[in-house]
């Protein structure tokens, strides 16, 4: 069954809920590793962070894009069935909408967290 027809829940997955936080975690990990390797291997202790900042900007754009797509899909789930049935109802449609709601909220949180991580390199411009 497709997500648009939630009567059969056999192929529903909770991984959808954690997709946005995973984007945030991946963004943090890759940004951290990039800056650490850049400063330790290439730029040196007092070197410029410019290239690493560009890379982090690219990671941030990719992460926010991914989180945006997840949020869009979550919004569609949340609105499924006209959005009239209570999303905490003990029915397949209620659970479908609940997953959409939870994913949407986590997407918002992940987007803010990703932006906060990226803010660091807006202000820190060298490896010192």
């Amino acid at each position: 069954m497709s997500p648009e027809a939630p009567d059969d829940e056999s192929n529903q997955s909770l991984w959808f809920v954690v997709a946005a936080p995973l984007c945030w975690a991946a963004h943090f990990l890759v940004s951290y590793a990039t800056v650490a390797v850049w400063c330790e291997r290439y730029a040196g202790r007092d070197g410029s962070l410019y290239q690493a900042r560009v890379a982090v900007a690219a990671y941030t754009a990719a992460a926010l894009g991914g989180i945006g797509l997840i949020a869009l899909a979550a919004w569609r789930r949340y609105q499924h069935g006209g959005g009239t049935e209570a999303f905490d109802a003990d029915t397949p449609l209620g659970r479908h909408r609940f997953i959409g709601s939870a994913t949407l909220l986590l997407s918002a949180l992940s987007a803010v967290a990703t932006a906060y991580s990226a803010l660091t390199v807006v202000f820190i411009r060298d490896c010192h």
Partner: protein
Amino acid sequence: MCSPAARSRTLLAALALGAAACRGPQSALDPAGRGADRIATLFTIMAVGAAVVWLAMVALTVFAVRVHAAPRVERRTALFILGGGALVPTVVLTALLVYGLALLPELVAPAPAGSLRVAVTGEQWWWRVRYPGPDGRTVELANEVHLPLGQAADLRLDSADVIHSFWIPSLGGKLDMFPGRTSRLALWPTRAGRYRGVCAEYCGASHALMAFAVVVEPRAALDRWLAHQSEPARPPTTPLGARGAALFLADGCGACHAVRGTPAAGTLGPDLTHVGSRHGLGAATLPNDAGTFARWITHPESLKPGVHMPAFGMLPPADVRALAAYLEELQ
């Protein structure tokens, strides 16, 4: 019952006591350096921001429960929860984060070239301090750092054993000290005086007894002090001190401690060349006098648990007094 006037007096006295507690040689709320000043301002803004948010929340709670205890329109309530529970905190946190991050570049910037350089090594549980001179000679002392007033100091920090953290709350932020890695910290003292530095990272049994004295003084005074510290020890001037000097070598103290100008050249423990002139003993946790020297020689473990120095309690009391007199004379 207290009268309103008595209550006001009590409140004012409590506030005065609270304000007095913010001062002192080891208070981040009484800054005497550029970095500490920025951090104190950051703390004030964070504290005021937290107080405003807390008061607003309490006011809203009182309004919802007491003032307007009636059913609400569901949609408006949902929007209010979204705004007050998510949007406003995000905006407030973002503003505070941006302000805090904007401070970082200045706080972590290295000292300008030509600044006074001081190398500090954290060891369990004391501080080895070295002032490299322009002629290549290094002046070594322990547990005391002198910094120039109104000028930057370039501190090079590392550790000989475990992770320590160098922190002079009155002058700036703290920085961890790692074995095998040199960290750089710039401090800009702005007010002359005596301050207290501490280890800010738990490093073993006597972590809480690992402090150091900090003196901020004009550059000319610092240069005079440094010139004095670079000189070898003066010979003792009293018979008791002279006997202590002989005992110092005979009892093997020189295997771990150096007293420049004598055969004692150990490097395991603190350099004692001018130990009598320091602002404290046992990493600035004890008074600098003959009685403390005597207790330290005979029962160091009772003053600093886990200390590496062995106890010399087997020495005759007369020898201990002579050693203490000698060390006190090392001005």
